[in-house]
């Protein structure tokens, strides 16, 4: 039986939730608002919140100066490509760890996670040299590979957690019915783990979309994604806050929209187990 919650308590929780939500969202809202201001209004003190001359000038300048769609398509290819490739590798890996654990499974999982603890700049030069010698510098395929490897520990860990909550008996039953390994993974396990796989997919797309170390350091012109697009608008000598805000808004808009439409899936996947 659900516990009775008083109206006052409900109101308090709602207010708190809204306050936290607004505090988190405010910088993004401010960026969007600044993108519609002139440069002079962007630095005005005290700043105006809504009552200023709205202008689209910054967006047209940004579009004129850089090729947004090339950067955008690179971002899409790199983030989706690396996530899908990562899932392809991680689903069988997580399956074996969840259902056929060995003596060292836990150690392997911890070891995989430990690779995330090394600061990326520590391996920049070796990776750069490898990329140079294999001709992968400034290629989308190279970035897909690097981002796959970087996000693989997270993908494996997330999937492992979801898979572990699926009762092994269901898979056993499938085996009793004559399912082979491949059919077991594709027809039994995957449909049951869809919420988990979906939230892993979404989270990794967001992580790859926002990744700004490797995408800046391993690209030049051809494979440069939206992170490079933003980096061309921040300036240590010159106040171009409005243009920078316009570039940032254009860069985060696609992922914000995807996140908005898939938030239910994302929250469900992150907060619930696979079988409840």
């Amino acid at each position, binding site marked *: 039986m659900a516990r009775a919650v008083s109206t006052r308590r409900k109101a308090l929780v709602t207010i708190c939730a809204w306050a936290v939500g607004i505090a988190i969202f405010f910088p993004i809202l401010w960026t969007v608002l600044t993108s519609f201001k002139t440069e*002079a209004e962007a630095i005005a003190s005290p700043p105006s919140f809504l009552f200023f001359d709205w202008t689209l000038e910054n967006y047209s300048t940004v579009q004129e100066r850089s090729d947004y769609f090339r950067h955008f398509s690179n971002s899409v290819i790199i983030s989706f490509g690396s996530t899908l490739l990562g899932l392809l590798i991680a689903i069988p890996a997580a399956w074996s760890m969840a259902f056929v654990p060995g003596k060292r499974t836990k150690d392997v999982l911890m070891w995989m996670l430990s690779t995330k603890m090394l600061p990326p700049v520590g391996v920049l030069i070796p990776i750069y040299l490898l990329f140079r010698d294999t001709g992968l510098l400034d290629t989308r395929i190279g970035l897909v590979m690097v981002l796959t490897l970087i996000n693989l520990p997270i993908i494996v860990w997330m999937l492992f957690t979801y898979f572990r909550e699926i009762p092994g008996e269901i898979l056993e039953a499938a085996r009793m019915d004559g399912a082979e390994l491949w059919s077991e993974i594709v027809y039994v396990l995957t449909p049951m783990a869809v919420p988990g796989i979906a939230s892993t997919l979404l989270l990794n797309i967001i992580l790859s979309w926002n990744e700004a170390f490797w995408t*800046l350091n391993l690209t030049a012109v051809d494979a440069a994604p939206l992170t490079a697009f933003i980096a061309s608008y921040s*300036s240590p000598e010159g106040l171009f806050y409005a243009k920078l805000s316009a570039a940032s808004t254009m860069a985060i808009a696609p992922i914000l929209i995807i996140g908005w439409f898939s938030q239910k899936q994302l929250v469900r996947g992150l907060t619930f187990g696979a079988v409840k």
Partner: protein
Amino acid sequence: MAFHTRALLSACAMVALCASASAETITIATVNNGDMIRMQGLTKDFTDKNPDIEVKWLTMEENVLRQRVTTDVATKGGQFDVMTIGTYEVPIWGKQGWLVSLNDLPESYDVDDILPAIRGGLTVDGELYAAPFYGESSMVMYRKDLMEKAGLEMPEAPTWDFIVEAAKAMTDKENEIYGICLRGKAGWGENMAFLTAMANSYGARWFDMDWKPQFDTPQWKDTLTTYLDVMNEAGPPGASSNGFNENLALFQTGKCGMWIDATVAASFVTNPKDSQVADKVGFALAPDNGLGKRGNWLWAWSLAIPAGTQKEAAAKKFIEWATSKEYLELVAAEEGWANVPPGTRTSLYENPEYQKVPFAKMTLDSINSADPQNPTVDPVPYVGVQFVAIPEFQGMATVVGQAFSAALAGSMDADAALAAAQAATEREMKKAGYLK
């Protein structure tokens, strides 16, 4: 069978022909300031004159670009054919053999026309390793109306004593007007660029001829105490986190009486579209202390060719175009003389049209008063006015900058900051092998 072979051969020949006829593409990495973006916009002039060369651009923020091109040049990655680099990098990279010499530029390029101070900073052992695209120094920008209200008149070449006096007289904290805005944010290119240049005018230096750090000398103490006193009395609140952009915002919104910073700021603060004080700004040389050295810096963004490139000839052609006299005329014709990249060529300052630009003379005088080979009163073993052109400097100066920024924030006094700077620098210099 014979027919197939012939067809295959002709196809191969066609492909080879197409490949040889297709244009060579050069990739240029550059910082995203106004002059460079203008150059990007004018690329068509270059490609029209050189139809066999195509140009691709990577424009980035200074710090990101520095990291990106350093990785590439050090590993001979070959990603870029032309790089925009600063006066700090050129001597270090030139010595390492990472850059292609530009000594063979044709006579028509007129290399002797490049301002000697700028050229000196880009030359290592007689080899010119980069061609300057634009040069800048630092100067005093001040509010003429506030100066008049304070009953003072700014000389063309002020002293530090005058600046301190004027800053205190112009301050009106109740109305949020602060006499002076200076960099306080920690960083080798932030507060340390300003303080190192200021220290030169006090006769201070980073190292003596034996590479021994000099922060324990009275000259550095004078520099830092003057800076802290004037900033505490007449500076804006929270100055320890102010860099170029923060001070620019304060100046443009009418909150600073004086601002000593890069000459490039002149075009921003006098632009009525962005600046509320555009018609009230005056300029003066950076201050001195009667020792024959002014507290201004010298910087040039220059174009260089990394040693790993396969397209050296095309890259040289581009550099020749972008840093030529003809390019300056092209910008003047398209966008007016005020938008011509400043500070590189003597002939530009002899041009009567350019002499009409309000900040032209001040920029030239500032650049000419800086000498990267002899930055301060006593001799030094290094090159550089507001930096020391050794690879260890970035890390060291950032640590020193943090101590000085902490002193400005009030969490330590000047003596403690100087002691910390001395200790950190000695440690680093020992580690790097300069000191026994």
